[in-house]
Structures are given as structure tokens and as C-alpha cells.
């Protein structure tokens, strides 16, 4: 199912709206993990608005597709997605990160509707997602499980235990992504703890690896289509080469925006930047759509 121009435009519009909502949420909260939220927003948009089979009125539908946000600190991007989707009241976003809120920095599956796993501690998402994928096999269900890791998170050894197991158990109903924005708290990933040759590592652990532009909605869709059509016995790992802070020019590629504060002035600049970014995206669709 190749992406039509109309679909692509709709997804770009949604990604723009969700980036704006993520910025708003950061502004309401005063600060947040906005850099890594923006880098993965295209994937979240594509998953929630093209691929995931979900029921808004039945969030715990047993046959629903699963999504685990292993890079749980991107909750500031995920919460807007879940509220916009209809799982939670968008008004909740105004309480994000505030005392007494149901929405903390890392979303709690027992408090926020639509969250399949409570994450935040890194290196936990891939094993849990694998468990969901294996459960589908035991139960004879055909739902898919998607999981998004951060690249810095891949320093954690538990990911590699899970990669080995996913491959060993031939969990092809698990589709994994890494948000390769190249940044972590203390610097660039390659400066703090070298990950490269990153794709080779996943391949060596038995995954079918694709490395794409993770801020290109068309490329994301193509890669997921390929993963869904996968007839090998290897689980798919899609490395999303992204830009930290994608869409907000003064954050882009700057690891110090792992977590940052947004004041009124920065908010206005960011908003204007997102608008420009959206226009550029639309121009790209016009140029590249089939």
C-alpha cells in the first residue's frame, strides 16, 4: 500500500499539528524533553494515523496493535498524540508535569489511557514489546507490536538481550525502531559512547535492518510496509535517522535540547519555525509525491 499524495499531505498536516501541540505542552509545563519528542513525531504520527489498529472507545481491545515507547522521556510528544487521538482529554496536556497530574514526564500505563507499557527507565521497552509479540503467538492473535527506542538508550545491555531473543524466537510480528537523533544528555552519542557501526550491530544480533530518513514520512511508510510484508524469519529493525528538535530551527541537532525550558519569546520563535518547517514539508510532498 504505497502512500498516496493525499495521505501524505494529511500525515504532514497531522505531524505539524502534533508538533505544535507538543510545543504547547512544553510551554504549559514550562519545560520538557522537546528535542527527542520532535525527532520522533513523524514516526508517532505515521503509526497512530496510518498503521495502528486501535479502538478509541475500547482502549484495551485485546486484538489491538501494541506500541511501546521505550524512550519514555518522549512522553511530551506521546501525550499529545494520545490526547489528539481521543484516548484522553486534551485538557490533560495543560497539567503535564504538574503536581497531581496523571501525566508525568514518563507516561504511566495505569494512569494514561492508550499507553501499553509504563516506560522511562531505559532499556525496558524492547523486552516488554517482545513479550507482547510472543503473547500474540501464544494466543493465536495477529496483532503487531511496534516499539520505539532512543539511540542513547541502546547503551543499555538489556536491549541486546532482547534483540538476541527476538531473533531467536523469530518474532516477526515485532517491528522495532530506533530514533537515531545522535544525541544524548551529555553530548553526541558518538562522543559519549560510540554506537557505530550501529546498523551492523542490529544485523549481527539477527535483525532485518533498514536505515532510513526518520523525518521523512514517505520513507517511514515505505519501511513499515516492507516490515509488514516481511516473509523472512527475522524481526525488522528500522533505524530512523532523525534530527533532534526537528522542526524548530534553534533546537535542531543540539543535544542540549534533550530537556529544555520554553519561555514566551522562545515559544513564538518555535511556533514560527514549525510553520516554516510545515511549508517546506508541503513543498517536498508536491515535489516527491507519486
Amino acid at each position, binding site marked *: 500500500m504505497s502512500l498516496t499524495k493525499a495521505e501524505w499531505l494529511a500525515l504532514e498536516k497531522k505531524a505539524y499539528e502534533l508538533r505544535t501541540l507538543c510545543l504547547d505542552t512544553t510551554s504549559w509545563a514550562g519545560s520538557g524533553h522537546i528535542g527527542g519528542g520532535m525527532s520522533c513525531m513523524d514516526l508517532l504520527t505515521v503509526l497512530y494515523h496510518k498503521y495502528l489498529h486501535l479502538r478509541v472507545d475500547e482502549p484495551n481491545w485485546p486484538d489491538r496493535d501494541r506500541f511501546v515507547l521505550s524512550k519514555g522521556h518522549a512522553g511530551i510528544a506521546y501525550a499529545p498524540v494520545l490526547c489528539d487521538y481521543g484516548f484522553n482529554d486534551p485538557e490533560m496536556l495543560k497539567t503535564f508535569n504538574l503536581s497531581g497530574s496523571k501525566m508525568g514526564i514518563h507516561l504511566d*500505563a*495505569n494512569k494514561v489511557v492508550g499507553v501499553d*507499557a509504563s516506560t522511562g527507565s531505559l532499556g525496558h521497552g524492547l523486552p516488554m514489546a*517482545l*513479550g507482547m509479540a510472543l503473547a500474540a503467538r*501464544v494466543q493465536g492473535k495477529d496483532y503487531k507490536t511496534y516499539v520505539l527506542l532512543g539511540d542513547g538508550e541502546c547503551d543499555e545491555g538489556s536491549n541486546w*538481550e*532482547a534483540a538476541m531473543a527476538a531473533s*531467536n524466537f523469530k518474532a516477526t510480528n515485532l517491528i522495532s525502531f530506533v530514533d537515531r537523533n545522535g544525541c544524548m544528555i551529555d553530548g553526541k552519542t558518538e562522543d559519549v559512547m560510540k554506537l557505530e557501526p550501529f546498523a551492523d550491530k542490529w544485523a549481527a544480533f539477527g535483525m532485518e535492518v533498514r536505515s532510513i530518513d526518520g523525518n521523512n514520512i514517505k520513507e517511514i511508510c515505505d519501511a513499515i510496509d516492507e516490515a509488514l510484508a516481511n516473509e523472512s524469519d527475522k524481526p525488522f529493525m528500522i533505524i530512523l535517522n532523525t534530527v533532534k528538535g526537528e522542526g524548530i530551527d534553534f533546537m535542531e541537532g543540539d543535544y542540549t535540547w534533550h530537556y529544555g525550558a520554553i519561555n514566551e519569546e522562545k515559544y513564538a520563535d518555535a511556533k514560527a519555525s514549525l510553520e516554516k518547517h510545515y511549508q517546506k514539508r508541503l513543498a517536498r510532498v508536491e515535489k516527491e509525491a507519486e
Partner: protein
Amino acid sequence: MAGSLTYTAIDSTSLSTAEIYGQALVELGRAHPEVVALTADLAKSTKIGDFQKEFPDRFFNVGIAEQDMMGIAAGMAKAGLVPFLSSFSVFTSLRAGEQLHTDLCYQNINAKVIATHSGTSFGQAGSTHHAICDLAVTRSFPNLTVICPADGYETYNAVMAAYNTPGPFYIRINRGFDRVLYKDKDYGFELGKAVTVNEGTDLTIIACGSCVFQAWEAAKFLEVNDGLKVRVLDMHTIKPIDKEAIIKAVTETRRIITVEDHTVIGGLGSAVAEVVVEAGKGCAFRKLGIQDQFAPIGLHEDIMNALGIDSNGIINAVRDVMKMDFEEDDDWDDEM
């Protein structure tokens, strides 16, 4: 309660505690298709091979990767399965302690950890394989029910109770054979309620795991030789602990000794002490266990002897505590 036990009291002397767990798991597997078993290259050691044979599609050996095992189990439970995870206690509580804390307890997952080779029961393996801190660690995790069964039948009862009670469980059992305390499974096991193994009014021994049998032997000896009536409580559920039985022991016997194959910091003894202190009533009190040190190497019974948590050590402790000049003030009863 699911199913019924298919082996007899005679079998319980020929099956190790882990083997009884293995049988209970098969029984659960037959009755409940959602039960799955996971291990980390310890299927043989944790005796879940029968489940593997009968339900190969519901058995997952994740290799030597306890953290991964916990996470996978959490995901499976989130999707509606009931995972039973088996590995050594030291690895389930410490190596994968954060996954137990975050993936299972924080999410309040319906998964059951069966932690084998607990305490010093894998004595010859040394401190890398002793689990002397697991009760202290797991007891502090919210949502987690922590059980330390005294023998094979109690393990069976604990496993069935775990299946029948939603939420995460940590059941710590020993390697190898346990001395048989209960003749059959019908002795009134109830989650969170201590079993009175021996009635008494002079002193109460509160024990868990393999120390319960030792305490019972000590009580029988002390009755014959010292004329003491020693109450023995099998405190199988470490959390939630039976406060009522503890306070009753304070008021009725005013002397308490706790015994555990575990460090005296944070385990059963600490749990009992917390209840005693909060009750506002002093009583003569002693904690037997591992005294803030790593245990020696050796056979389990030899280590228990060296640590003073076998019947000999317990007898000595009872005699000491009976000699303690424990003062009661005049209005002791009024303060209750």
C-alpha cells in the same frame, strides 16, 4: 483453587521443593491456557522441564538474560497471559531487580516470580549464588506479594494462591529437599496469615522458609527438656505480613525470636520488628539470621548451623532470651 495435588505425602519426601513447584505449574498449565513459563537457562535447575515437555509453545527459555526475562514476562502479562518466571533468587531479585521493580511492580503486572535456590540453600556455590538480601529488596517494592514457603506443600499452596490472586508475586524457595513440615496441603494455608505450627505461651518463634522446621524441632526439644511452651509461627507471607499474629505474640508471650535464612537487615525480622515497634509495646526480641556478613560456603544444613539458624542455634537463642530480664511496667496491659 485450581486442580488438586496428584502426589501424596510420601511423594513430598521424594520430590524437592522445586520439583513440587514444577508439578504445580504443570497442573496450572493444564487448567489454564494463559499460563506460560519462562526461565533464563535454568529450566533443569528450577524443575520446570515437565511444563516445557507438555506445553512447548508456552515455554520460553530466554538464555542467560534475567532482565530480558522479566521484561518479556511483563509484556506477556500486559497482553493477558499469566507468566511464571523461574530463576535463582539472587538473579531475580538483584540482577533483574530493576525490571522486577519497574516492569512488574510499578505496572502491577499479573506475573509470578518463582525464585529458587534462595537463602543459603545453594550453599557450596558461594555468595555469588546465595540470596541473602532478596526479602529485604522485594519487600520494599509496592504491589508485590512476597512469600517464603516452609516446605513442598506450602510451596504448592503458595503457587496456587499466586495464580488465584491478581498482581505480581515473589515466591522464594530452596534448592533441593526441604524437611517436610506439613503432611498434606490441607492445613489451612491462607495468604497473609501465619500458620501456628506449635502453640505456646512462654515465647514465640516467628520463622519463614527452611527455618520453620528448625524452629518446630527446637520447640519440641525445649518443651521436653526445659519445660518451655514455645509458640512457632510459620510466617510464610512476608508481605503483607500478619500483623495480628505478631501483636498477639507480643501480648501473649512477650518474647519474640525471628529466624530466617536471610540477612537480619530488612527481611522477616525487620518486618516483625516494625510491627512490634508500631504496636507501642516493648517485648524481648531477637533476630536470628545472617548477621550483616556474607555466608560461609558449605552444605545448607552446615551453613544454617554455622549461622545459628538451625534447631541448635534456635534452642540457644530461646534459652538466652528466656534469661533476659524483661521488665513489664505496671500498666502494660492498659496501654494496649
